[in-house]
């Protein structure tokens, strides 16, 4: 397993008049009833997880489930009420103002749902802003910003102001800005939610292209399970401040921890999430001559299996036969119990 980039353990974030006293009163683990009774909000409750180097971790959940707050704790825009956080093994909560600023200037990048662009600066100046904060000299940072602007496909609009750009273009600026400092870890809080569906799809492709190029560690918040499956290595699902389940999309679909997760997974395009290996059965009886790879997604092999009269053999990477898959198994995934 690769290195752990950032991690949190038993993280709580409570909003209210005196969160620490409230936590202490309830031995550090208040229940739903405690929250309700005293009017406190448990935005994040006892959340623990790791983000690995180079992985894309998606966080999902209904509105108000605490997704943004988790990210805001990891970036220390909010300080968690209790719990521990580490960044590359260092205690993130022990970082003082100065270290934090340094961390944000060099290691963290963030994209905001509503872009968060500075209205008084043009595209280039917005992108160069974090570099300016680093104290990079003017000509160098302009050159770097220009590079970023080109990278996100906004070349030629350097002198435009945010107010003169479309939503999609503004978010490209946001992305360019967050990437300008070459962060090690990249936070995106619903970066595409404010965009209309066509532009959203376009931006998702853009994101995939950039990620292929840059290979960052990413924590990404979304409302959209489809978006999550399209982009994520792992998905964490939050409910009422708790991390209900964190796993691959396939596991969420096949083994949801509870109804809430199942409901999220229900509308996902199963054929693009579930792999052959997950539904195959031990090989027996007569098999067709064509084989399908174990790691392939159902959607990719559906036509082939449905076309063949006999079940197909499933082979692993080494070409060894490990099972079989039939038309029935395919159609169960495609049309099966997801009413």
């Amino acid at each position, binding site marked *: 397993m690769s290195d752990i980039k950032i991690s949190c353990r038993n993280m709580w974030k409570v909003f209210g008049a005196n969160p620490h006293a409230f936590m202490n009163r309830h031995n550090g683990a208040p229940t739903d009833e405690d929250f309700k009774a005293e009017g406190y909000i448990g935005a994040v409750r006892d959340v623990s997880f790791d983000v690995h180097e180079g992985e894309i971790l998606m966080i999902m959940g209904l509105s108000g489930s605490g997704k943004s707050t988790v990210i*805001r704790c990891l*970036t220390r*825009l909010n300080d968690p009420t209790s719990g521990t956080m580490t960044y590359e093994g260092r205690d993130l909560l022990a970082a003082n*103002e100065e270290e934090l*600023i*340094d961390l*944000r*200037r*060099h290691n*963290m*990048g*963030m994209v*905001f*749902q*509503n*872009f*968060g*662009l*500075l*209205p*008084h*600066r*043009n595209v280039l100046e917005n992108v160069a*802003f*974090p570099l*300016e*904060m*680093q104290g990079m000299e003017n000509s160098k940072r302009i050159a770097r910003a220009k590079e970023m602007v080109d990278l996100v496909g906004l070349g030629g609009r350097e*002198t*435009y*102001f945010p107010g003169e750009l479309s939503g999609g273009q503004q978010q490209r600026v*946001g992305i360019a*800005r*967050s990437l300008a*400092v070459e962060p090690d870890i990249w936070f995106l809080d619903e970066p595409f939610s404010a965009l209309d569906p066509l532009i959203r799809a376009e931006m998702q492709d853009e994101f995939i292209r950039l990620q292929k190029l840059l290979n960052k560690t990413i924590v990404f918040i979304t409302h959209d399970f489809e978006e999550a499956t399209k982009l994520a290595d792992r998905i964490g699902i939050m409910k009422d401040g708790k991390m209900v389940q964190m796993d691959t999309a396939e596991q969420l679909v096949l083994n949801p921890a509870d109804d809430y997760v199942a409901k999220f997974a229900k509308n996902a395009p199963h054929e693009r999430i579930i792999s052959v290996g997950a539904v195959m059965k031990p090989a027996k009886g007569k098999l067709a001559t064509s084989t399908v790879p174990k790691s392939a997604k159902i959607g990719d092999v559906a036509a082939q299996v449905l076309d063949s009269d006999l079940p197909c053999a499933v082979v692993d990477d080494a070409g060894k036969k490990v099972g079989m898959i039939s038309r029935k198994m395919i159609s169960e995934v495609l049309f099966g119990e997801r009413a």
Partner: protein
Amino acid sequence: MTDQAGGSTSTNFLPDSLKGHEAKVAYVAIITLGVLLSFVWSGATRWPQEWVLPLEGWITDGINWLKREAHIFGVQVKDITRAIGATLKLPIKWAEYLLFRGMKPLGLGPLPWVAVTAGVALLGHWIGGIRLAMLCLLSFLYLSFFHLWKDSMQTMAVVLVAVPLAALIGLGLGIWVTRSKRAAKIISPIFDLMQATPHMAYLAPVAAFFAAGPVTALIATVVFAMPPMARCTILGLQTVPSDILESGKMSGCTQRQLLWKVALPSAKRTLMLGLNQVVMQTLAMVVIASIAGQPGLGHKLLYSLQQLRIGLAIEQGIAITLLAIVLDRLTQGFAYREVDHFAATKSFLQRNWHWIAFIAILIVSYVAAEYFREVKILARKQTFSFAREMNDGIREFNKIAYPFLNPFKEWMTTYVLLNIRDFFLWLPWPVFVGTVALAAWRLGKAPVLWLCLALMASFIVTGFWVETMQTTYLVLISGIFCVLIGVPIGIWCSRSERVANITMSVCDTLQTFPSFIYLIPAIMLFNVSIFSNVIAIIPYATVPAIRYTYLGLKGISPVTIEAAKMNGATPSQSLWKVELPIAVPEIMLGINQTIMMALAMTAITALIGSTDLGQEVVRAISTQNYGRGILCGFFIAALGIIADRLIQAWASERKKQLGFNE
């Protein structure tokens, strides 16, 4: 009924609330008792002379003691004020050198009028293109060619120093309030009070400590013009979207960078709005400061008005108005300036020609001024004045109009104004205090009640009851006229887009005029009289009544109006039964402002003669009767605060009843 209802647990000696009819009974009882009291005790009409608290004398003595003998940490107060005065004098002196006195220390003359005019026109072009350039050019040409250059520059010198000072102080206070809860707690209520305080009230205390002239004008102006900037700063900083602030933090901003590079620039529009208000308030105040010895346009205008030289007054008034409009358009234009995307592709000359042209004109005009005096400043015989012709015209006009205007004026004066005045002067103070106190308590409970009682007590026990009532009745009458005129116009605007557009632009223009200007037409038509005081107040103070009525009616959700329509309401039923009741709290806020402005203007009409508090302030300043000036200034402010608190409390109560969130 709950079991608690029987015995009220309130420790207050007052009942918790009164029902409508109980309140009526209470009002009638108070009035009757007060009137009866006045029959048996003459002190209820006039506060007995021997009971008058000699606060006036104490204040005068106190200030004299402060000025002559007091020490703070071993330093004489006298020296401190002198040092402040000298420090402030310095920038003003330089502004005056630059604009009209000539820079003797440098051996240079003042900026030639040609250069200033060209500079302002170029600035106008840079900010707002050719139209604004023309406005600036023509306005400044007017100043020169009507021989008002030197006076205008004298006024501008104080404006030039006061604006940056007021803007910076306001900005600083605003920032401080947004950063510190304690500062917010201390400063916000002070700003609230300052907003209800008319110009005049600021002059007396400053004039007590500083010599008459530009320094007094500067200090009073800065104090008066600063709150809008602070308010806009607070508003601007508080409304910066959190996304922007957080993106700044994530870019690695320190706290200071976050403020200066992210928050303040993002709030630029609101800040510029604040600056615009500072400029307008500054000009208005500098003009009024003529009563505290500030020379310049205001002083000249005051003099002309007092001498009834109307033609001259009109020319001077136009100059003030033009300056106000130019400053307003320049600062507004600056806030909304379009940016040029392709500036980088243009040559140095193209980008900077405004500067280059200005410097060229400056040098040429300086050199030319050495040889031709008229480049520096036009001599009187090179300028125009139509004052005499205007005087003749006005005389002719008045001759024709007299038969119509005079009976109107006479009738209004004898039957309306004087009757109401006599009523207020007759009114025993217990009646007034009692009714106001009851209203205050019903609307705002204890805090408003105690505030109002304390303020009212202050002008009774110090023996200024009569002067206060003089002001009160004028404000009240003018306020009523303003409402009677303004609310219907506001309603009309809400019915017709076209009317609204025209009216709103007229209102905008009226609001840019410094209040002083409104005295001119009043005197022109009705001479010096109570009636012309009312006439001067009306155009100035009607604007908010119009605006808030219009906005209140416009702001009603269309669904509500459609629902009324579907219930079969005719347009007039919809207006009277649905829209107006909903808009009433908003309209009341407009009326509140109308009354504040009427109060401010009433004090100013003292300059053309009246016997109210404003007159007392004017006279006290010129006779250096500090105690009287400060007290009367304070009473004007007190009247404003009482009216403001009562109306605000009423409006917010009503809003709550209507279920609006504030």
